[in-house]
């Protein structure tokens, strides 16, 4: 339990980015945001209260926004810092700071239980094609739930570190394949 809080304290910028990603997704989809708490000392580290999404696709985008946005920001921040530090040993507080922010974003990329519940709730809501919606959404919801469960084994931390450490390498190797 203490380790969990320590990790959250060490990676709190990722929580802020996670909630901001929800807000950005809402804004892009025209969904009204009522209240935002970017960071709090509670079981829910932050929250975004918003109007119901107009359709299932919007709900999906809002719920999985952090997975995409946090991961992209993690990758973008790690790009100028990870390889110089890990491979060439370029130390410096700037590099370390940026890398810390990158890993923090990656650690908090996964949708929360509330995010996944919102997807399933919308898929199960009354209306036309309810069963079809549930059948189509079930694989995604199950996968996201599985990912969320794996956070017990610190999979979210592993994800953040892997994206920050190896994401830039994979991208640059791809560039090398194009030019070699």
């Amino acid at each position, binding site marked *: 339990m203490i380790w969990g809080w320590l990790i959250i304290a060490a990676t709190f910028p990722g929580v*802020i980015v996670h909630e901001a990603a929800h807000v950005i997704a809402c*804004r892009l989809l025209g969904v009204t945001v009522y209240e935002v708490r*970017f960071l709090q000392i509670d079981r829910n580290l932050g929250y975004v209260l918003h*109007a119901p999404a107009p359709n299932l696709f919007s709900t999906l985008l809002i719920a999985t926004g952090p997975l995409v946005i946090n991961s992209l920001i993690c990758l973008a921040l790690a*790009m*100028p810092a990870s390889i110089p530090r890990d*491979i060439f040993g370029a130390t410096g507080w700037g590099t370390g700071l940026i890398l810390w922010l990158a890993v923090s974003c990656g650690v908090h990329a996964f949708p929360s239980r509330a995010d996944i519940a919102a997807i399933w709730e919308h898929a199960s809501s009354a209306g036309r094609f309810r069963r079809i919606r549930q059948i189509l959404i079930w694989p995604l919801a199950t996968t996201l739930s599985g990912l969320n469960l794996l956070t017990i084994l610190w999979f979210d931390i592993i994800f953040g570190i892997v994206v920050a450490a190896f994401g830039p390498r994979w991208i640059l190797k791809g560039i090398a394949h194009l030019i*070699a």
Partner: protein
Amino acid sequence: MSDAATVPCLSCDTDIPPPTGAAEVPLCEACRQKLQRQSLPPWLWILSAAVVLAAATLLPANYHYLSAYVRYQAAEIAQNDGRLHDAHAWAESAVSLVPGDMTLEIRERMLRSQIATRDRRYADAAEAIAPLVDSAGDLPELREHLLQLRLLASLIDDPDRETLERAHRFLDAHEHQALLRQELLTAHVRRWRATGNTWDARKLLPLARKVARETSDPEFARLIGEVLSEVETALESPGRPTEASP
């Protein structure tokens, strides 16, 4: 007096019709639009700008590392494709970007050595990897490789008997060195054809048989066969030359 069919807006308390959806929050249209237009808090914009600025400053400062990494990977890809000159060009450019990095330098020197070896410039090949042996510490395989290259270099230009015997001793201890075996055979054939020395003839026979078994080049195998036949015939003939001094 409030209308039973209306509810107060959560933001401004204006009476509005009740919301249609169960999860919908009662807001008047003006407040709803105000909330939709509401921007992210200023402190978040400022922090984001600071992070973007820090990352943007870091990128040009560290760009040469990223470029060197791309070139290093390009060298590996070209090497795997057998394009050694391209691979060396990439490795060389990587070293120029981050001089002093051992990983980059090792790859560049090994590629330079590989190219020189392929061109039979064994002295250049040895010179390319000699500093690695000195600086890399205890690497027996690298030392063995350097020793082989130095022996190969000594076999190219009319080696004397002592050099040849040194090469034989090395080969006895390192039987997997196929290139050394081939060059040693070539040296013995050259010497035997020039001098008719039976010592060279007797030394080259087992070498030739082994090289013939090892090679996958049919033309080379045919040439070795001719040499074997030539030497065996010469050794069996009654007027064969005696063993001359080296």
